[in-house]
């Protein structure tokens, strides 16, 4: 479903993404791991068509994101990193807005809103404005927005960031539940999440892909069999250098 080939992104002299390639098929959940500023968000923004790539190609469901952006975007749901929302809108209004932009109207729109409200446990805040929501609710509202059209491809930038342990658990459950029907990419700092929810993981460091494999394969790289040691071994040298 998602095919990324030799993707590069430069911001002036800074190279944010350097020659990243991977594919994600339906039924797969790909975890993006990497330190802060390693290029995870930038890669996701290119896949979703927000940033144009400097070079390389991204296709989603066979549509080149640069050439057929509308068709590609139609297939995707996207949860940006900060889980943004319009402060002055109610949850219901915001989801309705997203639904309409996804081409849903009338009873289809209403059914879609009801479905994501239930999926993301938003029943208690439906008519509350977004600026009055707690961080967890705000996050889930944006997550609901990304699911409104039941997309085949789901891109989530740190979907569990800022959630309490129970909410994190719920979101991971949700990802696992949806996995068989979709191609999913999500980024995270939390290594257990990768083991719990991903079928495959990629470690990105300073714009480069430094490791890729199933969680078990990645773990096997370390003598102790712990994912965080693999992560540290692959990315720490650079952190020290940067400091």
């Amino acid at each position, binding site marked *: 479903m998602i095919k990324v080939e030799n993707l590069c992104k430069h911001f002036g002299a800074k190279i944010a993404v350097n020659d990243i390639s991977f594919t994600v098929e339906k039924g797969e959940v790909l975890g993006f791991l990497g330190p802060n500023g390693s290029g995870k968000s930038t890669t996701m923004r290119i896949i979703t068509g927000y940033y*144009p790539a400097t070079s390389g190609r991204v296709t989603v469901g066979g549509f080149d994101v640069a050439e057929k952006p509308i068709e590609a975007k139609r297939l995707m749901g996207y949860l940006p990193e900060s889980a943004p929302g319009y402060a002055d809108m109610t949850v219901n209004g915001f989801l309705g*807005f997203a639904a309409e932009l996804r081409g849903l109207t009338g009873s289809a729109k209403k059914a879609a809103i009801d479905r994501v409200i239930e999926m993301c446990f938003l029943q208690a805040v439906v008519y509350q*404005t977004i600026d009055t929501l707690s961080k967890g609710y705000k996050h889930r509202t944006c997550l609901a927005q990304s699911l409104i059209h039941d997309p085949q491809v789901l891109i989530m930038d740190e979907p569990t960031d800022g959630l309490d342990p129970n909410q994190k658990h719920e979101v991971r459950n949700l990802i696992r539940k949806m996995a068989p029907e979709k191609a999913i990419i999500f980024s995270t700092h939390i290594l257990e999440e990768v083991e719990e929810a991903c079928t495959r993981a990629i470690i990105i460091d300073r714009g480069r892909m430094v490791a890729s494999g199933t969680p078990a394969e990645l773990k096997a790289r370390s003598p102790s069999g712990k994912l965080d040691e693999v992560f540290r071994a692959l990315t720490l040298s650079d952190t020290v250098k940067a400091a």
Partner: protein
Amino acid sequence: MNAWANIKTIMKRELGGYFTSPIAYVFLIIFLLLTGFFTFTIGNFFERGEASLVSFFTWHPWLYLFLVPAVGMRLWSEERRLGTMELLLTMPMTAWQAILGKFLASWAFLALALALTFPVWITVNWLGSPDNGIIAAGYVGSLFLAGSYLAISCMTSAMTRNQVISFILSVVICLFFILAGYTPITDLLTRVASPVVVDIIASFSVMTHFEGFQRGVIDLRDFLFFVSVIGFALFTTGVIIRGQRAG
């Protein structure tokens, strides 16, 4: 058809945004109070002893100078500050549709504000018998004047996430568009430059083009001027939004 549905959705959200916050009400009240004050007090509406809305329309370029950027400043800077721009531009629609939707919504809001000045029109019709054709042309001109300022505010709003900077920039640009054809300034210019140069500079001014509308003349050239300012400013908005993401 799909494009229009997207534009309508954006418009609906944007207009809703004005009315769920105090912005709309504060703006409408201030706008109506100020138009009343300028028309009747500063503009000597009654002392003029003529049945026209000259004293009403004369002030619009100056009144809009501060009020229209106040409406337009948030259009894109707010999207950037909240991060919703990322959401909006990853939706299956073109940036054009979003730009147009936002612009049309704010323009419709300004049209509402302008329409609410109808008591002035009733007053002048009650007191005398003005040429309502001239008044209608004045309203059309005023609406396009507001649209031009708004498109400029839209453009400056796309440049920054800071609404204050966006506001100041658009006031300065709009001020240029006024002063280029403001009589005291053009008089000053004729002393140092040839009349041809002054005419060319003045032809860039909203004052020059708004004048015809106030006299009841809807000249195609004046009309085209406002439409091109709007078109150019919105096009630039698109370029800025695209440029920011290209890095």
